[in-house]
């Protein structure tokens, strides 16, 4: 296989095998639970990356009216709407979207697990079952009846995690995100059951994280304006090169009174630029 010819993949596979072995032989988990443990460890390592996003979401709440205005203004041109929203996020130093890097960091884990499950020489009589309904985590998901249950759980967990990861307010896009798992399931059905187990676990983690995030965001509605104002202006000027290509979405001052002087200054700057 072409992908396997890349040397780094066999090295990743070695690492994954060692980690799984450690959980199995040293911690005493079954092979299936070792996969769950690996997933949890990976997601725990990624937690610091998500904290920043939680702060951004907290900040975002007070910009909701302006964002809705932009959406209304460009509702017929989705491309333009996206661009304007992105510019608005940049100008106000907020961004609700997840970033690609943390997600991509999971890619090597996923690939190595895939190849480990395919190539590992399991010891004779190894217990590869999980919760009595998956008989063999290294076998294809649909090759066992329990795999179908796992796929149903996968679809539900994927929908739930999409719900929490989704940041768009666009209704069509939201529906699309929610329906997508129904199509992915056909790709996933061919993967080893252990890989689907990884997916279900990571999805459930996302849901748990989403629930905690929501609670945190709801609890702290007002962001700290001082921190933003002290570092935004110079950056804003730097980014105005590409940000000011088309007319800015003219954000109104936020309702919080403490940030008013800065907002006025920004407004002045923008008018002088035009």
């Amino acid at each position, binding site marked *: 296989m072409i992908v396997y010819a890349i040397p780094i993949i066999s090295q990743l596979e070695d690492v994954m095998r060692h980690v799984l072995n450690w959980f199995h032989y040293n911690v005493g988990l079954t092979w299936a639970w070792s996969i769950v443990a690996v997933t949890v460890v990976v997601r725990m390592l990624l937690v610091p*990356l*998500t*904290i*920043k*996003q939680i702060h*951004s979401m907290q900040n975002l709440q007070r910009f909701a009216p302006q964002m809705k205005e932009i959406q209304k203004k460009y509702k017929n041109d989705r491309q333009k709407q*996206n*661009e304007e*929203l*992105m*510019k608005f*996020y*940049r100008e106000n*130093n907020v*961004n609700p*979207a*997840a*970033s*690609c*890097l*943390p*997600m*991509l960091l*999971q*890619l090597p884990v*996923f690939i190595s697990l895939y190849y480990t499950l395919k190539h590992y020489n399991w010891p004779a009589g190894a217990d590869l079952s999980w919760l009595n309904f998956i008989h063999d985590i290294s076998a294809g998901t649909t090759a066992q009846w329990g795999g179908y249950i796992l796929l149903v759980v996968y679809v539900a967990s*994927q929908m739930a995690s*999409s719900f929490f*990861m*989704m*940041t*768009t307010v666009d209704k069509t896009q939201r529906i699309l*995100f929610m329906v*997508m798992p129904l199509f*992915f399931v056909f*790709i*996933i059905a061919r993967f080893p059951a252990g890989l689907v187990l990884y*997916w279900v676990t990571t999805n459930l983690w996302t849901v748990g994280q989403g629930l905690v995030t929501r609670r945190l965001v709801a609890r702290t509605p007002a962001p700290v304006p001082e921190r933003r104002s002290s570092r935004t202006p110079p*950056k804003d000027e730097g*980014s105005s090169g*590409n*940000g000011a290509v088309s007319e800015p979405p003219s954000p109104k001052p936020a309702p919080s009174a403490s940030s008013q002087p800065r907002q006025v200054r920004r407004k002045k700057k923008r008018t002088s630029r035009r």
Partner: protein
Amino acid sequence: MSAVLRVPSMLGIGLVWLYRMTFGAVFPTTCKYHPSCSEYAVQALRRHGLVRGSVLAGWRLLRCNPWSRGGFDPVR
């Protein structure tokens, strides 16, 4: 660019599509940039060829982290 010179970048674009069809499809994420990282990669490869395009795409991926501001960031 002639068709022959375009082959390497087409390979790169093929890899991006492979990612989109597999991992990217199953882990849908909303990128904080516009165009999204994978779209940016395709545009960069198309415009600057395999080597420079890959570097640009790699740099963009590194920038797409929780500490960056995101926003409108087209290939130049």
